[in-house]
């Protein structure tokens, strides 16, 4: 350790960068969408799958995975009104200021998956992190094979990005399958949990890259189903949510066994989670 320095030249990893909300709107009864730009004018510099720590001065910080592809300008977040920070964000409108730290964490296998078929399995708000990679793929469409998106939602009113989902559905280079767990009369499509869609996937699952994101309970059942279909474990990627408080591998809250999710996650290759029982 240096004995003489009294001035620290390294940057402060806890200091947020000022950012502004350019636009925001409710996506459904609980989820708010925000388009954000850093006040410096610089791009966030994220890759699909990475998260930021959003700071609201006077309230605190919350980790949110970026919902947009880096191929688009600015970046987008979707936040559910469940905690103190997210509650404060729900009171904000265009022009409001936020603090941003990051991007942090691991990324989706954007290069490894080139030329491969991709299957996105999303449960509820799990669509949000996946959307960053989905739109990245659609913006670089010729680099990838078939794209299948499975979306399961609890009820019709909870559906997210309805217009965008309709656009994906209308494309002939995307297979979109949607299901609702507790349907009402507005819904005449598939009924049941997202695993009920897996047999309907129109690509060879054993060769595809499979990306999974959803509520904690979903992973176990999706993985059981994928293993039944004999999908190799190293073709499956899971986006795991934890309590990422510092975002920089120090505070200990996000640990699953020996892994700091804020550093080695949130995107994990399933085969790398063998011997990590706290992951699922």
């Amino acid at each position, binding site marked *: 350790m240096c004995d003489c320095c009294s001035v620290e030249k390294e940057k402060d990893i806890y200091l947020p960068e000022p950012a502004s909300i350019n636009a925001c709107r409710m996506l459904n009864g609980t989820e708010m969408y925000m388009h954000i730009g850093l006040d410096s004018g610089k791009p966030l510099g994220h890759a699909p799958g990475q998260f930021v720590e959003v700071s*609201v*001065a*006077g309230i605190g*910080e919350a980790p949110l995975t970026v919902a947009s592809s880096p191929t688009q300008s600015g970046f987008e977040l979707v936040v*559910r009104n469940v905690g103190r920070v997210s509650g404060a964000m729900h009171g904000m409108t265009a022009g409001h200021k936020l603090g941003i730290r990051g991007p942090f964490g691991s990324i989706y296998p954007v290069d490894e998956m080139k030329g491969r078929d991709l299957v996105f399995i999303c449960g509820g708000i799990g669509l949000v992190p996946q959307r960053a990679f989905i739109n990245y793929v659609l913006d670089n469409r010729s680099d990838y094979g078939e794209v299948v998106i499975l979306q399961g939602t609890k009820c019709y009113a909870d559906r997210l990005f309805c217009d965008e989902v309709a656009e994906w559905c209308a494309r002939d280079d995307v297979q979109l399958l949607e299901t609702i767990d507790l349907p009402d009369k507005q819904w005449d499509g598939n009924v049941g949990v997202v695993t009920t869609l897996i047999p309907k996937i129109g690509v060879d699952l054993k060769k595809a890259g499979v990306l999974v994101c959803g509520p904690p309970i979903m992973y176990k059942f999706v993985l059981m189903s994928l293993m039944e279909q004999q999908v190799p474990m190293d073709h499956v990627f899971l986006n795991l949510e934890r*309590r990422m408080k510092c975002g920089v591998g120090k505070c200990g*809250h996000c640990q699953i066994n*020996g892994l700091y999710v804020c550093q080695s996650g949130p995107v994990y290759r399933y085969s790398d989670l063998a011997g990590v*029982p706290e992951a699922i």
Partner: protein
Amino acid sequence: MSISKLSKTDFKEFVDGLLSSGKMVMGVQAHGERFAFDVLKSAGDLRLDYDVTILPPKKYVLPQVETLLTYTLPEQYKSQYQEGEMILLGVHPYDMAAINQMDILFSQDQYDTHYMLRRKKMTIIACDVATPSKNVFAASMGTATVHEGYDILLTDIGDAYVIEAATDKGRSLVQGAAGLANASAQDEAARQAVWDKNKIELNKHPLKCKPSDIPALLDKAYNHPVWDEKARTCFACGSCNTTCPTCYCFDVQDDVSWDRTAGKRYRAWDGCLLENFATVAGNHNFRKARADRFRHRLYRKGKYVPAKIGGRIACVGCGRCITACIPDIANPVAIYNRLVEDLGVAPKK
């Protein structure tokens, strides 16, 4: 490295000299029948014959509460750093070993300027243990003595201290101390005798394997019944975390003025035994079962943190958790020995 010695009378003068020069010295003092690091006001209050302090000197390296930044609303943030230099006087080898681990953890990957700047402004005067505490097992963990991290190491050899100044900071502090003499071969032999003795005596709970066996032992122990058995009487109070010199998990919180114009963001000690340590917004707790949290602590000490710091075991054998734990379940040696007995690691030769 220069090795010298000071008589105990001259050492007292030396400490009073430090205090009168206006330096901030945190020294070990008696509080009733126990000991604690606190602001030292007089050399007469210093108790280098202490057995163990209630809290480790971690409280200065990573304060219980530390302001990271201040802000004015909306969203104008400013980094805050602790001003001033500090001398820690009387750090035992096991606590020094713990600080050495934390130095690695806070500088690796993402460099923590708040921790590291404070460390750079700190001078550590370590001292070898003169009185073993009732629960110390540092000898089992290889931390009964320490040979790195400190600026100065003191060893009580009876009527004098052997003084090893290991850094420029340490040398400049002791140079010119009245009565300072070169240590003789006999003095160094006396110091070696203290080390040899401590390597045997600081072992009230002998570990039945080598510390380096622990990660492999834990590889086999994830579903062992000991976690449930011990955790059955756990209060989830987190005392084992707060008294531990190697626990460094923290929470980050905001404190805002009543009129919401300004505030600060601070970090505060947290503990993985506390019920909501892994709870996320929406009230999902990723480590809800007490036994899982109990196991997590032992795995952090014996496997997860060692993987980050080159294999050093993140238990230094201070024994504080054993003393602090009311239901008496925290003793790491009792757990590791039970696993050795049940799962069979080669016994220590």
